[in-house]
């Protein structure tokens, strides 16, 4: 039985599954239910200065795909709309009742030192395990010079992080916004400011849909809409890339990463951990199906680790990072070719039409004694994987790496590269 417990930047939890700062962690009632269900920790929904913000009615938009609900999700909700003291009292009680779980408190106050100096001791006094700085919320708060408005300016990220380290002894996690060109800039700023860890990604600025009857972006509030923050399964690839970029950056070596973005299953979590995450945060999947989803996340991750011989999360963490390279490091002499298992083929023709119309005309459409048959034309196949992706049958089309007779060749040395590094003279 694998040991799933973690020590993330000094914050301990029995498993790496935390609920992200969001509606599911807005109050003690929800958080207690989450802990009862088995979640290892929570990041309490962002606290701010009194008086509390006011939220609109009609807050979520969603992207359904082929009848599957919530492939992507967005919200125009702001930070907690409850008084500060109510939250602080509940946090104190919950941490007291659940000492083995991680209770991290998300914070967002105006970008002046006095505001942070005021709130930090009050939060620290609850006995919580750490704070997460919400530098990512891309709507509503950013228009008040908070949230993403801070996260998009590395100098501000560093400055506020420094204030937090100066005015508290708590571990500081800086939550990064993806609404930026290069994720490394704010991550490095956080580290320079003394951050104990980063978490990412916050939500992506988005319009999920346009209501074609009301002619307004969704979610529609009294006939009008605004952009929101996008999350859910659809954003996972974007989050994975940003996590990987930070994990492999030499300047950021050793900076703990809490992975966030569309994590719905143990497998999603394992992928984030393999790319360097030391904990993972979940929101949309829980909002879709309830807190009970963590049971399979824990069980599935543990079973998978057992099957691979990994004993601890540290055994898995970062294992894929060294294989996440720049394009220029890829071997141009590598070749892989599609192979169709004719016994598994159901004759849908999708591989053929995808290749014929949009790729390399390397899957022949045949009739043998009247029966459909699709065959790879190996000499035309460039190994693009498209057919394997469109094939609806698991294992029917596999990409077969070809025996490599040539040495590894990267772009820097390729004859077609005008900027090629000249061979050293004999």
């Amino acid at each position, binding site marked *: 039985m694998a040991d799933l417990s973690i020590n993330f930047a000094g914050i301990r939890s029995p498993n790496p599954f935390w609920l992200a700062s969001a509606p599911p962690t807005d109050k003690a009632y929800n958080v207690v239910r989450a802990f009862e269900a088995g979640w290892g920790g929570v990041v309490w929904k962002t606290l701010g200065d009194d008086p509390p913000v006011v939220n609109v009615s009609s807050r979520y938009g969603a992207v359904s795909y082929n*009848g599957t609900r919530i492939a992507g999700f967005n919200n125009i909700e702001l930070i907690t709309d409850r008084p500060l003291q109510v939250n602080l009292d509940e946090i104190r009680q919950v941490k007291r009742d659940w000492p083995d779980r991680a209770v991290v408190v998300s914070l967002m106050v105006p970008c002046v030192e006095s505001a942070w100096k005021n709130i930090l001791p009050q939060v620290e006094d609850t006995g919580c395990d750490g704070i997460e700085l919400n530098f990512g919320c891309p709507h509503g708060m950013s228009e008040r010079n908070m949230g993403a408005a801070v996260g998009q300016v590395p100098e501000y990220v560093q400055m506020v992080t420094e204030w937090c380290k100066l005015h508290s002894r708590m571990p500081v996690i800086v939550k990064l916004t993806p609404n930026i060109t290069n994720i490394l800039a704010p991550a490095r700023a956080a580290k320079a400011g003394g951050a104990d860890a980063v978490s990412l990604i916050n939500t992506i600025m988005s319009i999920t849909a346009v209501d074609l009857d009301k002619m307004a972006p969704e979610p529609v509030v009294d006939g009008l809409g605004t952009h929101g923050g996008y999350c859910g399964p659809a954003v996972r690839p974007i989050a994975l890339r940003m996590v990987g970029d930070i994990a492999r950056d030499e300047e950021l070596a050793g900076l703990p990463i809490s992975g966030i973005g569309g994590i719905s299953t143990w497998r999603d979590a394992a992928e984030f951990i393999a790319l360097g995450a030391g904990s993972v945060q979940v929101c949309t999947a829980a909002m879709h199906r309830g807190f009970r989803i963590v049971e399979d996340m824990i069980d599935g991750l543990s079973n998978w680790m057992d099957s691979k011989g990994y004993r601890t999360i540290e055994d898995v963490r970062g294992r894929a990072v060294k294989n996440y390279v720049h394009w220029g490091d890829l071997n141009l002499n590598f070749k892989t070719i599609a192979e169709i298992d004719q016994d598994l083929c159901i004759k849908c*023709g999708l591989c053929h039409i995808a290749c014929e119309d949009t790729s390399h005309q390397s899957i022949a459409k045949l009739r043998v004694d009247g029966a*459909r048959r699709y065959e790879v034309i190996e000499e035309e196949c460039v190994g693009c994987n498209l057919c394997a992706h469109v094939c609806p049958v698991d294992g029917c089309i596999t990409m077969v790496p070809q025996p490599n007779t040539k040495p590894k060749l990267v772009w820097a040395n390729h004859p077609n590269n005008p900027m090629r590094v000249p061979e050293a003279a004999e």
Partner: protein
Amino acid sequence: MPDFFDIAAGRLPAAQLAANFADAHPPLTPHEAVVEASRCYFCYDAPCIEACPTGIDIPSFIKKIATDNLRGSAMKIFEQNIFGGSCARVCPTEVLCEAACVRMAEEERPVSIGALQRRATDWLMQHDPAPFTRAPATGKRVAVVGAGPAGLACAHRLALHGHEVTVLEARPKSGGLNEYGIAAYKLADDFAQREVDFILSVGGITIEHGKRLGRDFDVSALRRDYDAVFLGIGQEGVRALAIEGETLDGVRNAVDFIAELRQAEDKATLPIGRRVVVIGGGNTAIDAATQARRLGAEDVTIVYRRGVSDMSATRDEQEWAQTNGVRIRHWATPHRLLGEDGHVTGVAFMRTKPDAAGRAMATGETYVLPADMVLKAVGQVFVADPLHADGTLTLATSDGRIAVDGEMRTSLPGVYAGGDCVAGVDLTVAAVQDGKRAAEAINAFLAR
């Protein structure tokens, strides 16, 4: 109280009868339809299209359901099959499009093509009862004999091409077997007539009821009065058992029983036996037996002279009958109808077994099934009499039906035929294809 001659009406309460003859397979909800449509892989060179006798572009119409383009979806269906609504309900999809669905190879659970076709066609019929636009009038007039699926499919396509069509129908209602010959719960809520109205909405089609070929008019008159003629006259005859006792009271043709049931305003007025024996192995036998059960018959048995896979009713149809409490006995052929006081009391069957070629061979061994009512469903036959003039047949036949070529042309110039009166499978969808192809051929003929 006799333990035979037990034929009575109103065996079940009205509410039970209403439920028994309501839509057997209710439509998909909009969400169910989108989810089911999303199961379609949108195959290229899709096998289902090839398996549809009318060649509907099935992946395209399903894709349009998934994108909520229901008008486009329905029009995609109707452009190939104007009876798309009834075919969605009565087609044996399990041996046609759904049998060919690639998901059968993958998981033995095909996309529910029939149910999706119903979703699209129902939507359009409800939202736009007249969606067709005719080509400019050509001034040509075509006579269509028979207002069944073949005749009306032909008439509709001819009307679209701008021709004027007169349909001559012997029965009081249009629709052919959809109106008179198919189980009520398959085409509930008067669907056959609603579909006829939808088809006629194209305009340019006049139907004259009570006009019977051979009695009220003949082919030569039609050839004289019209520019072209289409014969969709079906199979008017019913095959006899040709055994002793066939005239006993309580012995009926299954097609008559079904027609009467379909036309009955009140199902509670229909007499049905307590013990019913149905003889035959096709859809008519299934429809008769199942409806007998649903009218309240206590004990219904279908007896077929050969095995399960020899029955022309599909396996799904057989199972449908069985889940309705119908027992199916194989490998026995009726030997004698037993009677008392002129009324049938039972059927003596002779057990059969397959010979070397798989045909039923009598064994000499017999058994008796008691019966208050016997429904004969051993096949319909084409009756050529209306095509005679002065004692001779006016056009060529082949295998007992009207002979046609690849363009549905008969041996008489300008006369075309299709549906059950020509060779081929006896399905609504096949009749529609015949009518459609004949219309295209007629259109080309009239354009010369």
